């Protein structure tokens, strides 16, 4: 399983986007700039790797699968593992003391779990924004 696929080709190593410079395609090398995401956005979840936390979350919401979390993956921002929070339009760094699994599917499950904990926390930035701006 290693690192999954990216731009139609197999990623050699799961740490490809931590260790590398992100310049893979001819176009990226030509312009000296990484294009697009630093993970395979189309990687479908392997439901055999669902964590107990995510199972409880799914049951709480009344869903039968990961639903919107199917689009959440562990990405890599500025050389650090991170997960993108669409509610704040920014990357949330994975804490440095978190041990990363050796494959992308388990990393994605970890990212989903951490993102839920972050979004549902009273310390999430949107809680303060909600108090300040909600209309009714």
């Amino acid at each position, binding site marked *: 399983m290693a690192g999954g696929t990216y731009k139609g080709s197999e990623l050699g190593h799961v740490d490809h986007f931590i260790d590398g410079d992100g310049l893979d395609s001819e176009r990226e090398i030509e312009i000296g700039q990484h294009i697009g995401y630093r993970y395979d956005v*189309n990687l479908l979840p392997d439901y055999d790797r669902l964590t107990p936390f995510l199972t409880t979350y799914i049951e709480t*919401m009344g869903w039968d699968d990961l*639903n919107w979390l199917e689009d959440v993956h562990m990405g890599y921002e500025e050389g650090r593992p991170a997960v993108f929070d669409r509610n704040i339009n*920014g990357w*949330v760094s994975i804490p440095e003391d978190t041990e990363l699994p050796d494959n992308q599917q388990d990393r994605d499950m970890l990212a989903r779990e951490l993102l839920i904990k972050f979004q549902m926390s009273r310390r999430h930035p949107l809680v303060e924004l909600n108090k300040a701006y909600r209309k009714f």
Partner: protein
Amino acid sequence: MAGLSDQDNESYEMGMHTEQLAGRTQEIFFSPREGENFVHPDSFDVDFDKRAEFDAAGLEIAEINLKIRELMESGHGTIVVRNPGARHSIGVGILNRLNLIIDGSLGYFGVGLIDGPNVRISGRVGWSCAENMMAGTVVVEKNGGSTFGAALRGGDLVCRGAVGSRTGIDMKGGTIIVGGDTGAYSGFMMQRGRMVVCGNAGKNLGDSMYDGTIFVGGEIRSLGVDAVPGEMTDLDRAWLERKLAMYELLPSRGVGHFQKIVAGKQLWNYDNLEPTEKKIVL
């Protein structure tokens, strides 16, 4: 970048910016040892077993939506709306776990901007059903109009019948499932997410798609610009079977006949020098 400095300078001189696009890194607020909380702090505490229903005939659209909100506030987790009368913008902006049952049809922009609820609509829906949906499930029992699931961000949007043109236009995530046929320009400018069409797809499927995946069980009239066939993997097949079975749309012959369409990524040429290139061409 060293060899490109002349080009960089040229674009600066022409007044073009060279801003690198990046998200903002958040390094505060978060601890993985946060207590287990599965809903947003300000969401209503509802019980799926607590059920309420009301007759929407004679109510204004805003009154219907406020009524749904009041019922959630009082802890109702299952709400049935009778006689919606195909009016527009019903059930929009629900940011809560909820079972919402619409007994009838909806007009334009039904259940748009929702984040979490499970919605079942027994009739048809007009244009842009579940537009900008963030999470949850929406199941339409009959047919849908054009731009079904426009700009979808997340969740599952299902139509058991056929839908119009430009299905999933500009979708940025989530899953759209169509039990019947879909019209022209479906998946237009799709950026990510998944679309599953059990029937046929109209012309220019996936036109200018940037990323994402489209699965089609029937015939494709034509592919759009930069939409190309992709290779079906075991993970794709397992996901398709599980997802279609979830909504009782799995064909009796399985998913072996489905085609996979992905972005050719020939349009992936945006970079900080592109404005310069355009200027030169023009």
